[in-house]
């Protein structure tokens, strides 16, 4: 197990910067996620930790020891890949045993470890099969087995669930979390799926174009996104963003799409331009008969089971909100929309930073 420290890590491919200055400590035993859209540099960071790529600048340390001189096999890390990367010509048993065999471990000891891992992952009955005969979920387990069998200091996981169908993905997510609780090994996880990041991590870092936009616990990232990018990326469906200005004269307040908002934060000086963010799940749309809130036109209704997603148009702005199942709304009909002032996120219009 290890604490991973990044000091000023940069990585360029030719002239193209992929990771631009990473300073970060991943704590011992933590489940840490890098999340971001494709091309944000998250997989490269994983490859840097594994030793599959070399940093252009800066260094990475395990428990304070620089790992740059170590080759991938000597770093004592295990990696799970998006495509599983199982060895197609070997059986499940041989796949899991492979890293131990490469360490020249004794046959009996290998056998014991492989069986223990297989037992933990429910693979015992599949040990003689080849990867080609397995389902996606089973292959994923074998890949996990191959990783845990060597009891590494660090687990690296590169979008390990992306190739699974939606149902299995949720199942495996829970299983990964259980596995982490049970083994307590530092895990660095990479995904583009914000739900996975929120659900699995102790802490997560939102990456955009090689830069960390925010690094915090999932609840904090969700509740207090550091900028408009993080706000837009974390949360599904994405947050509603509207332009607003600070009222000149009177109590400090935000004018937004004809509405006056008084969020409980310190506002910039009058006349300043801001971006107002409200999450769809914080907006309640109700029948036009009700009172309070703003009048809107419903454009689309999408049942989500115990509630309904509502696409609506408010003073020319297209937005999304929720409605109770019995809200009695119709597409192209009228409705009323409301949200609490505490749920409003305010960002500087120019820098995009949270206010």
């Amino acid at each position, binding site marked *: 197990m290890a604490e991973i420290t990044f000091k000023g890590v940069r990585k360029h491919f030719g002239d193209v910067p992929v990771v631009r200055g990473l300073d970060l400590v991943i704590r011992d035993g933590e489940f840490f996620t890098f999340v971001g859209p494709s091309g944000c540099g998250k997989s490269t960071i994983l*490859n840097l930790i594994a030793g*599959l*790529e*070399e940093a252009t600048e800066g260094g990475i340390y395990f428990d304070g020891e620089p790992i740059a001189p170590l080759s991938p096999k000597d770093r004592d890390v295990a990696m799970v890949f998006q495509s599983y990367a199982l060895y197609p010509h070997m059986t499940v048993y041989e796949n899991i045993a492979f890293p131990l065999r490469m360490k020249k471990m004794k046959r009996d000891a290998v056998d014991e470890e492989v069986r223990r891992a297989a037992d933990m992952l429910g693979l015992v009955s599949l040990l003689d099969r080849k990867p080609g005969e397995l389902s996606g979920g089973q292959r994923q387990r074998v890949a996990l087995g191959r990783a845990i069998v060597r009891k590494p200091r660090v687990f690296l996981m590169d979008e390990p669930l992306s190739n699974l169908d939606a149902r299995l993905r949720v199942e495996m997510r829970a299983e990964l979390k259980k596995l982490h609780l049970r083994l307590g090994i530092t895990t660095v996880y990479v995904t583009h799926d914000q739900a996975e990041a929120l659900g699995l991590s102790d802490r997560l870092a939102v990456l955009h174009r090689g830069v960390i936009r925010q690094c915090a616990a999932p609840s904090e990232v969700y509740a207090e996104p550091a900028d408009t990018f993080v706000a837009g990326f974390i949360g599904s469906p994405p947050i509603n963003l509207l332009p607003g200005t600070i009222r000149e004269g009177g109590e400090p307040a935000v004018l937004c799409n004809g509405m006056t908002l008084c969020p409980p934060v310190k506002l910039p000086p009058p006349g300043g331009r801001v971006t107002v963010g409200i999450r769809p799940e914080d907006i309640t749309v109700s029948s036009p008969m009700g009172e309070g809130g703003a009048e809107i036109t419903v454009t689309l209704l999408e049942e989500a089971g115990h509630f309904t997603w509502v696409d609506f148009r408010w003073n020319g702005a297209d937005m999304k909100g929720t409605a109770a199942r019995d809200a009695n709304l119709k597409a192209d009909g009228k409705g009323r929309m409301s949200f609490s002032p505490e749920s409003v996120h305010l960002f500087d219009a120019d820098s995009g930073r949270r206010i």
Partner: protein
Amino acid sequence: MTGGEKGNRFVLPAMALLSLVTFYPVVYVVYLSLQRRLVIFDIAEFVGVDNYLFLIQDARFWNALKNTAYFTVLSVSLELLLGLGIALLLNRSFRFRGLARAVVLVPWAIPTVVSAKMWEWMYNPDYGILNYLLGAKINWLGDPFTAIHAAVLMDVWKTVPFAVILLTAGLQIIPQEIMRAARIDGASPCQAFRRITLPLLAPVILVVLIFRTLDAFRVFDSIYVLTGGGPANTTETLSIYAYRVLFQTLQFGYGSALSVVVFLCTGSMSLLYIKMLTRGGR
């Protein structure tokens, strides 16, 4: 790439062999071509471009070049046409298609020398099966006009399978849906072939053309065994002429000059082709 591991060691043995056995000789052959060299008598003197000056005035060289070009053009175009026809046949589904394909492949696997001997026997003016089947008395290999065409015929037989294989593979990657869509859009089978199959097959046809022209242009063994270049040098190709100068008259200087010319011809053709390929493809 799998990351930063260096692989120069992996490439080294292959590069060493290629350098020693192909690149070095190509440089050496140019050097030889600037000499008057009789190997057996250990005569070697530098004569500059004399061999090339002689070559320009050598009627036999021009004759060989003409024969080679004629052979190449005729042989490659026939191969392509016949190959396309057979590929279209084999692209239909029928029982024993695998076996039929294997049978079509047979001439490709037969050693060129053996196939030349086989055809020589079939061309035999007195006992040959060809004259028997045609009810004719043609002196196939003895008559200048028929001899070069007999050589073409044999070469086409031997190399059509290559064209068939590539063209069949090309036909198979044309999605069935496109053909069905064309039929629904009202194209007759003929129109569908002309307007859809042929254009989609064009890259493969180009590849066949390239490989086969280069091969036909350096033709040696089939004609050397079939006619020996005769009658009266009417089937003598550049490679055969070069070979005879080298190993029958043992003039290594002039023979090497002839080899260099073959090399330059195929080399410029390859360059042209590589340009066409890189422009046409992706």
